[in-house]
């Protein structure tokens, strides 16, 4: 009954796609990291995504130091305020209607975009995993309650909700991040829960229980490491969503007024009506948003194999 295991120790697949000489298993944190790096290096799309993201992160960290001007300061020349000037030697991306340097705005804005995405992603990962784990492993009433909350979260449309929430409370970055997180943990929680449910039934988990291991021990040693790939996958999705949500919210005018974000730049440009006139104002922030989302997306694609086993070829 069932399949026979080969005694010669050769891990061979019987599916078309043939033999992979690398074994697709995570061994330890160090192995995990080096394996992920290798995986990224092998996939050209993921690699370009990773590089892009790295550049953006570096931009976010160091950019503002290199900003030629204060993004809030109107710029003057001898003739007067440099309103809506196209790109020039002094102002590489030109200026906006308030004579502020656009390049500087872009650089400062990158901090918001990248920083907020990472924050949102981390919170999504953390909360989603926590809920998924608890729900999946303990089941029963806890599971029922948490899943009903998750269902409710699914019903809410993302951007309008964020907009409304922010409008009702103070428009601040924190609120935006909070609102985004509140929505996006739903997918990761669901998926983590599913994964936990199936892991719970695997013989090695049962064997652990038979040894007398506590739930916490089993979750820590056996369940959590196995759900991490899923979690990172959904974190990436969360980042994408977060970036777009923030940009949209700022664009709609609900953004934090004290901060310079890319969405804000777009909102202002639209409000002034400068879109057809000042392409240098509109295109850079739009492009940057797209690049950030794209880089995360490309990276994420590399993880689809892990998350969707049907895409895996030739694995035992």
């Amino acid at each position, binding site marked *: *009954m069932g399949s026979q*295991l*080969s*005694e010669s120790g050769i891990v061979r*697949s019987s599916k078309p796609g043939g033999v992979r000489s690398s074994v697709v298993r995570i061994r330890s944190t160090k192995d995990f990291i080096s394996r992920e790096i290798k995986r990224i290096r092998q996939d050209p799309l993921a690699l370009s995504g990773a590089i892009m993201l790295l550049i953006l992160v570096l931009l976010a960290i160091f950019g503002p130091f290199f900003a030629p001007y204060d993004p809030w300061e109107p710029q003057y020349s001898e003739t007067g305020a440099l309103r809506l000037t196209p790109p020039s030697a002094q102002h590489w991306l030109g200026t906006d209607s308030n004579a502020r340097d656009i390049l500087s705005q872009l650089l400062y804005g990158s901090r918001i975009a990248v920083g907020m995405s990472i924050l949102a992603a981390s919170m999504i990962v953390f909360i989603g995993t926590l809920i998924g784990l608890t729900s999946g492993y303990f089941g029963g009433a806890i599971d029922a309650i948490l899943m009903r909350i998750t269902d409710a979260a699914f019903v809410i449309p993302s951007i309008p909700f964020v907009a409304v929430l922010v409008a009702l409370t103070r428009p601040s970055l924190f609120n935006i991040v909070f609102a985004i997180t509140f929505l996006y943990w739903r997918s990761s929680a669901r998926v983590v829960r599913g994964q936990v449910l199936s892991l719970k039934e695997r013989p090695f988990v049962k064997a652990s229980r038979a040894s007398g291991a506590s739930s916490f021990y089993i979750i820590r040693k056996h369940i959590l490491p196995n759900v991490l790939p899923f979690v990172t996958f959904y974190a990436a999705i969360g980042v994408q969503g977060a970036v777009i949500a923030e940009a949209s919210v700022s664009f709609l005018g609900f953004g934090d007024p004290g901060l310079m974000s890319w969405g804000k730049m777009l909102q202002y440009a639209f409000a002034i009506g400068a879109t057809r006139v000042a392409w240098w104002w509109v295109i850079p922030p739009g492009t940057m948003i797209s690049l950030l989302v794209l880089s995360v997306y490309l990276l994420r694609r590399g993880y689809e194999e892990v998350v969707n086993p049907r895409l895996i070829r030739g694995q035992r």
Partner: protein
Amino acid sequence: MSILSVDSISVEYQTLSDAVRAVQGVSLNLKEAQILGLAGESGCGKSTLAKAILRLLPETGIVVSGKINFKGKDLLRLSTSEFRELRWQILAYIPQNALNSLDPVYRVGDQVVEAILAHERVSRNAALDRARQLFSNVHLDERSLRAYPHQLSGGMRQRVLIAMAMALDPPIVIIDEPTTALDVVTQAQVLSELISMRNRTSSGMLYISHDLGAIRQLCNDVAVMYAGLIIETGNVGDIYGEPLHPYTMGLLNSVPKSRGAKRLVSIPGAPPNLRSEIQGCAFHPRCPFRDTRCVKETPKLYEISQTRSVACHYHHKAKNFRILAEDPNIWQMPEPREAVMSDFKEDIVP
């Protein structure tokens, strides 16, 4: 009369780093109305050989040498389209997992009819009649014709596959472990279907399995495979009653014969790594009767008679070996025992 002749086939699985020699220079002959059992444990190459014949090897599987002859044609040299045409008509295949082979969205009767119509110029009604007959041959109710695969039990699905395979009355049927996913009683039922099929048709069948009991019950002749090689052939009575190769002896003795676990023979060690070139006899590291010749010289398949062959230098000592092989302690010896060898420089058994 030989209908399929496999001539020195070697198959390798090629990965980025190395090559696995799954089948090494295997030759066999399948005759009309013969059921040839291909016996062996996992990794011995039997499934690979079957897939090579059916040209169903995965991308990494390559036939590096040899021919597969059917009526004078080398099946491996045919183009894909030529082979496809020929396949269902001459070479039927009953695979392991019935669920994967039946299209879930079509009724099983329709699938059989379509298979017939694709290869023969008959009317739909004639095809349907034949489907009915085929189903009744495998003791499936006519009503089953209208069922979808998921509505049938595992045993019934397997019988559908048998019916489908026989639809065009193929001269060669290759059966690959058809009973793995079934419960014991159903396994026995499927086996008896195959037996009645054997009695009814004149097709030659290649039955691949690790289930020695099933092979014994179903097959006329047996070829035993080990590490990609055929190490013994013969008819069922000879192989199970008077095996010539130590591996066959060990294998048969490891299956329970009587009450008591202590009498069971356990062959120590494991099959050789097929990634590297094998020196000498493939089985020698685990063989209690080996000596220096076995370590250095690869035994060829010695032909004892028309039907009997064995790849062992000392096959003439088989009678003695058989007696010794029943003792589990013999098999625990890691080094070749000089004493054992000298025990039968002369024949002990009268």
